[in-house]
């Protein structure tokens, strides 16, 4: 019953997302990218790519791998940035829309608990991002495999890392949505963390040296460990895409803790609130 209720809410969140057109646009862009890569691979041979470089025959295999890595990186890096930007934009209104007077009354009058509603909203949003990212990443991976015979599955790790980063930011969107019912605020806060806070806090040690103040140093440290580490997750994503798994797990763990805390708070507040 619980799982079924969560599924129902997730399903209607998915339908809401589809109605927004933004995910369909993303799907269209992904298809366009796949078609462009497909055509390039179809009409240009490996020799054309290698001929750009003056290399010995023995270095040929290494070079192909390098070309593949560059390709993977050039897909993973913009996918992380643009994909998350669009996903935040599209998902920021899920909760405020649900909480609108008239809509929330219909929803809460049904035999579904409030925590099931939040889980459904969370998983529904996650699902559509996962499907979109997976479509593009698996498509590119497949084209690279066909063209270069490189079937290294590490590129597929882009799917869970981008989805995980979205899940962390989406948990914040849900919390802000429940607290303020404002999609603009939820979106702004997510962009603030994604584009400003996280990259700036990544360089907190340099900032602390410049300012030379213990309090600021502690403050930056606290902010760093408390907020999602989207900047590190971005470099982890591109590293994993090219097969480099020698990264620090701390950004994952602290970001996951942030997500659990945000979701827990969201469920607690939503369960107590009058509508």
């Amino acid at each position: 019953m619980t799982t079924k209720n969560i599924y129902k809410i997730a399903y209607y969140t998915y339908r809401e997302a589809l109605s927004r057109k933004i995910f369909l646009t993303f799907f269209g862009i992904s298809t366009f990218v796949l078609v462009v890569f497909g055509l390039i691979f179809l009409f240009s041979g490996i020799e054309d790519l290698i001929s750009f470089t003056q290399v010995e025959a023995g270095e040929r295999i290494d070079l192909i791998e390098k070309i593949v890595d560059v390709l993977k990186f050039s897909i993973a890096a913009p996918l992380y940035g643009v994909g998350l930007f669009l996903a935040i934009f599209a998902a920021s209104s899920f909760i405020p829309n649900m909480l609108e007077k008239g809509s929330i009354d219909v929803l809460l009058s049904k035999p579904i608990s409030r925590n099931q509603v939040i889980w459904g909203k969370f998983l529904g949003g996650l699902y559509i991002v996962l499907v979109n990212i997976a479509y593009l990443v698996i498509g590119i991976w497949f084209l690279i495999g066909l063209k270069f015979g490189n079937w290294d599955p590490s590129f597929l790790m882009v799917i869970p890392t981008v989805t995980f980063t979205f899940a962390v930011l989406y948990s914040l969107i849900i919390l802000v949505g429940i607290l303020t019912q404002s999609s603009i605020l939820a979106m702004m806060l997510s962009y603030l963390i994604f584009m400003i806070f996280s990259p700036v806090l990544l360089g907190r040690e340099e900032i602390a040296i410049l300012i030379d103040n213990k309090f600021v140093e502690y403050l930056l440290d606290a902010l760093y460990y408390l907020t999602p580490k989207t900047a590190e997750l971005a470099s982890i994503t591109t590293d994993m895409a090219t097969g480099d798994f020698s990264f620090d797990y701390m950004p994952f763990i602290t970001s996951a803790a942030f997500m659990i805390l945000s979701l827990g708070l969201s469920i607690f507040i939503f369960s107590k609130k009058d509508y």
Partner: protein
Amino acid sequence: MYSVEVQSINKIYETAFRKRRVQALNDFSIKVEKGSIFGLLGPNGAGKTTLVKILLGITFPTTGTATVLGHDISNYKLKSKVGYLPENHKFPPYLNGGDVIKYAASLSGYEPPNLEQKVDELLSLVKMLEWKNMKVKKYSKGMMQRLGLAQAMINDPELVILDEPTDGVDPIGRKEIRDVLIDLKNQGKTIFLNSHLLSEVELITDNVAILNKGNLVHQGNVQELTTSKEKFKIKFASELKEELKSENFNKYQIEQMEEDTVLFKLNDVEELNNLIDDLRKAQLFIVSIEPLKSSLEDMFISLIKNSDK
């Protein structure tokens, strides 16, 4: 057997930092009989919608308890047997009429094999079948009300709670909605009606509760409420001004006299019987005796004014 039992519910809304407190419900208790049509009446801001929201777990009571269909209101599963039409409801705008009914069925855990057929039946009942495939964002207010009523019935509920169901509906539509509600009652379902359209409530409800500023002003049978216990209109076979001026009738208070009809104001039914005896002794031929009825609206205004004093 009661479908709804509310015991001493208090609801206080507080703004941030407790700067302002509003007592929406004050020690409120009611019982709604199973299989009846119950009307909850009150002026705007009386606390009607708050009570309905408390019953459905949309809002929480500050103190007090309530049961719906024998279950404590904290049990969200009880809502599988409840249909609800909120005031100013909104459905996902990307759905069409048929999808909205399926949406309500799905969230209510109602998934019969003939769902499509049930959807068509309900849409047909509320005269919305021809708009089944139109997106609800294009619906008018009246169409939304009809659709809202249909979605409230999809899970075959034992209790249907309707908040201003005829709001924005034309007179013909109102009559059709009334017929639907009477039909539901005949099927043994309980209807809990929240409305300020007193003339309509009067036509279909069995019992009413009148609420003012969070307090229960009156609860009872509509018939009893609107029937005056003091005034009786007696119609005679002929005009009888002179006869009633005789000594025998001096003890009775006559409020109004029009040709063959006289309006008496009496203390009780016993006095009415004495009057009838005297009229018969005087060999006056009585055609009919009718207790004077006030409209529910008159009674409502009178009760609200008294409670405001």
